């Protein structure tokens, strides 16, 4: 009967209860939308970075991690080959790509800029990365043209260059000798990260080898079957790595992305906490008003023999019921809204430039994150529990005689 009373009490003041129920539902709805939006934004950025540049993990020589110079190679061709084979033995490794990475300079007729040159094996990149998909002009090393280079859209804009234009690349080989060669732009790429596009250009490893006379490998990019459990998988591979070679997950190779990922988790809990805090005071206010209005009734219940435990339980159940009614409505609304937005996306084109600099695309597709539904549900229950404490305390403090008289 306690449940029956609680349920009917909620509807004694329909408007007031509907207001508080709506505020709880809207709070949850907003919380889930923020979660969906944040995950969508962050996961798209992370997936793009993993797909185009980072892979799930990367192997470097320990010296390269200390200072990424041309001399900090992974090892001889045979040693690199052995490492590739070793990595590919793991069931979860989908593929590997070897890369040479050098700092250098790109010179155009009117200006020059410092860049990072990534020398890749096009066949392998086609399989293991989505670099070819980022090409907006030209192609991804399809032609047999020697000394072809693919530069980012932003770098092309800065240098005032276009397709088929020539640039001079200057770099230092493993022995410290400066080499210079002329390259022709055969492709222009554009990723979600405009900063990356401005600083990185791609050439073929074979061209680099011919230019400097050395076939260097500084990095092995490793792709897993899926992004889940990246850290565990990386740790497993790490144990098998030869001395001097270090494998790090994308989170550690790109700390800003990993940091954003971790921060997002903390921020979302904080945002949910703030929403719940607002709801907490709304519910407390609602319940205090209810207690105040029902003073006579509560006094009577205490007078006829309702003990404090049962009185507390009655108020607790009533408060929890507010959460149990509004919670599922809010979660359902949030879920439906996210599902709709997953299809159409949230258009932030007006902030395109700023978002691109952060590696975020201008249309965000929210994601459903089921584990947060559970977190939200638990937070609603905890909030309702906390919200019941003060009103229940006030009720327990009532003097039955005075309460019955309405004093």
């Amino acid at each position, binding site marked *: 009967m306690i449940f*029956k009373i609680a349920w*009917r009490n909620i509807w004694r003041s329909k408007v007031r209860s509907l207001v508080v129920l709506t505020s709880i539902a809207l709070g949850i709805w907003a919380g889930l939308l923020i979660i969906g939006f944040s995950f969508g934004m962050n996961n798209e950025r992370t997936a793009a970075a993993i797909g185009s540049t980072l892979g799930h993990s990367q192997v470097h020589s320990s010296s390269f991690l200390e200072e990424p110079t041309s001399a900090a190679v992974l090892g001889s061709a045979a040693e690199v080959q052995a490492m590739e084979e070793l990595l590919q033995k793991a069931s979860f490794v989908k593929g590997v790509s070897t890369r040479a990475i050098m700092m250098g300079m790109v010179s155009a007729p009117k200006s020059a800029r410092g860049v990072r040159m990534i020398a890749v094996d096009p066949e392998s990149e086609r399989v293991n990365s989505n670099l070819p998909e980022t090409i907006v002009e030209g192609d991804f090393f399809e032609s047999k043209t020697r000394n072809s280079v693919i530069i980012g859209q932003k770098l092309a804009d800065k240098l005032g260059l276009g397709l088929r234009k020539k640039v001079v690349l200057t770099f230092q080989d493993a022995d410290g000798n400066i080499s210079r060669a002329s390259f022709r732009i055969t492709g222009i790429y554009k990723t979600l990260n405009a900063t990356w596009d401005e600083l990185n250009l791609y050439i073929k490893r074979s061209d680099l080898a011919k230019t400097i006379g050395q076939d260097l490998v500084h990095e092995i990019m490793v792709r897993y079957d899926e992004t889940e459990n990246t850290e565990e998988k990386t740790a497993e591979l790490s144990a098998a790595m030869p001395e001097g070679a270090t494998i790090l997950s994308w989170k550690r190779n790109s700390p800003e992305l990993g940091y954003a990922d971790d921060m997002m988790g903390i921020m979302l809990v904080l945002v949910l906490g703030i929403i719940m805090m607002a709801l907490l005071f709304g519910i407390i206010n609602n319940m205090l008003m209810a207690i105040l209005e029902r003073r006579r*009734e509560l*006094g*009577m219940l205490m*007078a006829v*023999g309702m003990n*404090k435990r049962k009185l507390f339980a009655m108020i607790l159940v009533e408060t929890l019921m507010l959460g149990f009614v509004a919670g599922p409505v809010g979660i359902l609304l949030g879920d439906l809204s996210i599902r709709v937005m997953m299809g159409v996306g949230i258009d932030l084109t007006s902030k395109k430039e700023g978002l691109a600099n952060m590696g975020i695309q201008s249309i965000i597709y929210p994601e459903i994150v089921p584990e947060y539904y559970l977190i939200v549900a638990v937070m609603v229950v905890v909030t309702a529990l906390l919200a019941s404490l003060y009103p229940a305390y006030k009720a327990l403090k009532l003097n039955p005689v005075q309460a019955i008289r309405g004093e």
Partner: protein
Amino acid sequence: MSKTVIEVRDLFKVYEGAVPVKAVNGISLRITQGEFTALKGPSGCGKTTLLNMLGGLDYPTSGSILVGGKDITSLGENELIDFRLRNIGFVFQAYNLIPVLSATENVSFIMLLQNRPKEEREERARQLLQSVGLAGKEDKRPGQLSGGQQQRVAVARALASKPQFVLADEPTANLDSESTANLLDIMLKLNKEEGMTFVFATHDDRVINRARRVVAISDGKVISDTSK
């Protein structure tokens, strides 16, 4: 000789303040099984304070109240709550029914607090509502009943816990003459047929005239005690 239900010995209740007020000033009283007693007096004479102390809703400053031989003034707050639940029925001036419950549920609720089985609760609630003349109104909520009918539900509720006695504080104050007469008829019938002890705090002559014992109180003291 009838069994003593309540025995009050030299009871005082003093409200401290700039000028201490003796609301109950040395009352001794014995109420036996089956009495239909009215505590009468003007407003502020101390009758409601006395009734509250008899019901374990308030503690005296000094003196003792024995209910069934047990001094309830020595009970702690939680023990008193349980004592009230099992021994005392209350009827209040403003009925104080739970508005979201039907008549049957209002009567059953107190038995729920006593952890009685559902079938027993429903059967006894039905019987009690019938005995107060509310057959057919079992599913009505208080808002759908007249003042007199609500007070009859309150009487049924007071009896539901099978108390040793019923305390009624100005039970007819909000009722018209016809409702008052009906209510008193019902309570007298329950008093006669079931031997239920009723103690009223009232200044309503309609109640006083039908009470079999009238204890007049003035300035916290018993000034007369007459039985018919």
